[in-house]
């Protein structure tokens, strides 16, 4: 039973690329790209508990773009001597635009809601996030991601930090279920974070984060 609880806890602690909530007055710019999406998220954190910002999601395959206001809420943070865990709720409202057939300059209200969590110490990292996106007849999908990471060396404050990560992304569709597995490298130094990888299907992930 103890192992089952640990396993459930392990699967439930997750995050994504960088924290969706910063410190009071902090501004964060995230730009992310994978095989389907290019997205931009610029958020401002009035407090440690939440952030609000602009979100733009461009689906390059289905050729539609979502633009909206995103609100991120830190539900819970657990600080331990050698580790930290975070639980977030993320939501956005806006509209989706498509010019792709059968649409023509078609715009509909849209939004998403999702949960994210992460746990890390200085050697290991794990994160999970999910997202339910709804945009009327243009797009509807559910997506979830799990990440596991290990630091090959423990850097000091100010050093270049490196993480070797594995991302498993699950995007169920109406007719098929798609799983993408992507090994990637994450680097960060100072307020800059860069990560890149190539999925087993050959799709490139390239993400960058700057915190002001």
């Amino acid at each position, binding site marked *: 039973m103890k192992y089952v609880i640990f396993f459930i806890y392990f699967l439930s602690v997750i995050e994504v690329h960088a924290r969706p909530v910063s410190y009071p007055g902090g501004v964060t710019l995230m730009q992310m790209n994978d095989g389907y999406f290019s997205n931009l998220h610029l958020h401002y954190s009035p407090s440690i508990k939440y952030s609000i910002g602009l979100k733009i999601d461009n689906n390059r395959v289905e050729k539609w773009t979502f633009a909206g206001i995103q609100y991120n809420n830190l539900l819970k*943070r*657990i600080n*331990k001597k*050698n*580790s930290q865990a975070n639980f977030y709720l993320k939501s956005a409202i806006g509209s989706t635009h498509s010019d792709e057939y059968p649409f023509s300059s078609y715009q509909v209200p849209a939004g998403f809601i999702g949960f994210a969590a992460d746990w*890390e110490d200085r050697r290991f990292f794990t994160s999970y996030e999910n997202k339910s996106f709804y945009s009327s007849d243009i797009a509807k999908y559910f997506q979830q991601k799990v990440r596991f990471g290990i630091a090959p060396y423990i850097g000091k404050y100010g050093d270049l930090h490196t993480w070797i990560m594995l991302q498993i992304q699950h995007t169920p569709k109406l007719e098929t279920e798609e799983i993408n597995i992507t090994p990637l490298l994450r680097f960060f130094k100072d307020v800059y*974070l860069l990560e890149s990888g190539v999925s087993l299907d050959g799709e490139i992930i390239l993400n960058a984060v700057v915190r002001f």
Partner: protein
Amino acid sequence: MRKIYLILVFCFFSISAFSESGNLECAKKNSVNVDVNGMVCDFCARALEKVFSEKQEVAAIDVDLDNGRISINFNNGADLEDSTIQKLVTNSGYDVVKINRCERG
């Protein structure tokens, strides 16, 4: 007499050494060391630098990820109360375990 002199010299150096080792806890005399829980990520710990650097009393802070500790170095004659330090650390997203005051010069 020579033995007493040697003992006194020994005691003098022992006390000096002890005194110095006590100060090793503090990088600078006009500083405070704070033990912090949750400080495991360099990228996220930048929040501490940002939040503390907005205080005019603070000259600089040093972050020690290995020991989960920050050293707050104050400008001459300046200081922050423990309650303020606690609030700033909490606002940065971390928990204060202990605040260690260094000897003032």
